[in-house]
């Protein structure tokens, strides 16, 4: 173990290689270029392969091909590039092929800009591509967590034979922080489904086309049950739940700023707690519902005009009228002071 001072993007690349990722396929787009650059430099030394593809579409399909043979593979991009990868992500889900896809998101819609945004929440958590599918979505909020969760992403992808998304943003990708590296301790599972040539066994087919009557229905029910099982992987972080009268919910890099704001509010005697979902899909609905029996007031804070807030409202059910929201569309990052001000307003309205 050593302590390094690296960017979030580099931490993801390092975590991937440590977890056994030996194939990276990507296409340049700001603000995630440190990932392909790191991979191009360091994969050859561990016997891996880096390919700069001709497009985001080609790169996700190269991942599909490599993963189908049992290799651990990753691709990364940023918002408009992830839109292009959605077709491939849908096929990965339909064919039950794992893979890790990183979205160091930027601001949209369209070309938008390269500033941080959380406007890809719906795209990440609702499937994004065509068909009734889900992917596990992990949302790190620090460089250390980016490293740790990337390793975990490969294990989860293999465990469920499903792609796993890592949703960060320009802020997480570009921030530089101390990182404690650690050896990968997981054990990649035996893969009895991969394509290696039908030597000594019956041939295998990996596909997503099901035309016989009822066959696709069965396949989709099977996938549905798998998505339900992913609830075992729900992770979140909480602070100050015991005496809180208002619970603030935020994720990713923004949650760090929100944490500072909540700290400022606590200093002023406001009874405020924090919940930070680490898995955005599956979302910690049950945990929030349980909390809502004790805490009556909620506030979602996002770098968008409001997406995750819908999940918070779903979680707290009939108390949804007690969910306030502060959102900041892309283009600027709020300071802890600004968020404190917004939280204090809600606290005064609801509690004080």
């Amino acid at each position: 173990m050593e302590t390094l001072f690296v960017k979030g993007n580099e931490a993801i690349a390092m975590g991937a290689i440590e977890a056994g990722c030996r194939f990276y396929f990507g296409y340049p787009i700001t603000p995630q270029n440190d990932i392909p650059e790191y991979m191009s430099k360091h994969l050859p030394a561990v016997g891996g392969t880096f390919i700069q593809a001709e497009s985001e579409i080609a790169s996700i399909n190269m991942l599909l091909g490599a993963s189908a043979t049992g290799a651990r593979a990753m691709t990364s991009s940023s918002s408009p590039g992830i839109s292009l990868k959605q077709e491939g992500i849908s096929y990965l889900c339909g064919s039950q092929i794992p893979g890790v896809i990183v979205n160091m998101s930027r601001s949209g819609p369209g070309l938008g800009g390269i500033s941080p945004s959380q406007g890809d929440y719906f795209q990440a958590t609702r499937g994004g591509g065509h068909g009734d599918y889900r992917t596990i979505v992990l949302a790190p909020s620090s460089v250390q967590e980016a490293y740790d969760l990337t390793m975990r992403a490969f294990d989860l992808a293999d465990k469920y034979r499903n792609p796993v998304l890592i949703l960060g943003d320009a802020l997480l990708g570009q921030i530089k922080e101390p990182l404690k590296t650690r050896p990968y301790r997981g054990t990649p599972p035996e893969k009895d489904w991969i394509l290696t040539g039908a030597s000594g066994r019956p041939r295998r087919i990996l596909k997503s086309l099901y035309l016989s009557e009822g066959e696709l229905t069965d396949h989709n029910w099977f996938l549905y049950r798998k998505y339900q099982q992913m609830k075992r992987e729900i992770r979140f972080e909480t602070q100050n739940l015991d005496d809180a009268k208002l619970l603030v919910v935020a994720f990713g890099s923004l949650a760090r700023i929100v944490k500072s704001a909540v700290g400022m509010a606590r200093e002023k005697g406001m009874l405020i707690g924090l919940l930070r979902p680490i898995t955005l899909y599956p979302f910690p609905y049950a945990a929030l519902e349980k909390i809502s029996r004790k805490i009556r007031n909620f506030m979602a804070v996002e770098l968008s005009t409001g997406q995750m807030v819908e999940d918070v409202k779903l979680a707290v059910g009939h108390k949804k009228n007690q969910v306030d929201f502060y959102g900041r569309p892309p283009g600027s990052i709020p300071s802890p002071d600004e968020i404190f001000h917004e939280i204090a307003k809600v606290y005064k309205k609801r509690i004080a």
Partner: protein
Amino acid sequence: MEQVFSRPQSLIDVPFHFCPGCHHGIIHRLTAECIDRYALQETSIAVASVGCSVFLYDYLDVDVLEAPHGRAAAVATGVKRARPDRFVFTYQGDGDLAAIGTAEIIHAANRGDRITVIFVNNTVFGMTGGQMAPTTMPGQETTTTPFGRDPAVNGFPIRMAELLGGLTGTTFVARGAVDTPKNLVKTRKYMQRAFEVQTTGEGFGFVEILSACPTNWKMSPERANKRVKEEMIPYFPLGIFKGGDA
């Protein structure tokens, strides 16, 4: 009595679903013959595309991975890079390879990926019901060129073999047809060479095969075969474009 003709071992003994007079069945058989000839049944990973050829896995007794529309070449790149010791080939139609998958095939070819591409050109989208393909001939009526393809509106048929043959990254590029026994025998040789350049590690092999689609051309199988000779071959000349003598 000596048996001189039999079903290739890697061709599964089931009836083809293809329409009467379609050349896919012949090309499937040629593919299976190549797999057998080079003893690749246990080391092949086939990449199936979409359209009429998607059911490749119903007929070839090898591992098969299904690619999204047009992306087979990129998928094959991923497979081959991860398993360089396996034989990797795609089987794609013209709607797949020459329209939505143009970028993927050009770049896979130009990277010189050690894969083999079998490209079936019947100048029409088959499974989707006969719409215009990039290879549709001038004047050819399709469901989306009901008055015949007008190059002034739709551009010209694209010659993929010529295009890929011009790329530095390719090793062997040829175009054949299976409308006559003579052409079939030549095409078989092209396919063998396209297989060989991968098995020997030389590079990227590509065979375009002119094919009949009597259903969507609204012709009898005999008439469709005649069209291959009279209309297609003059525009899409047969022969080797890279890696040997025509």
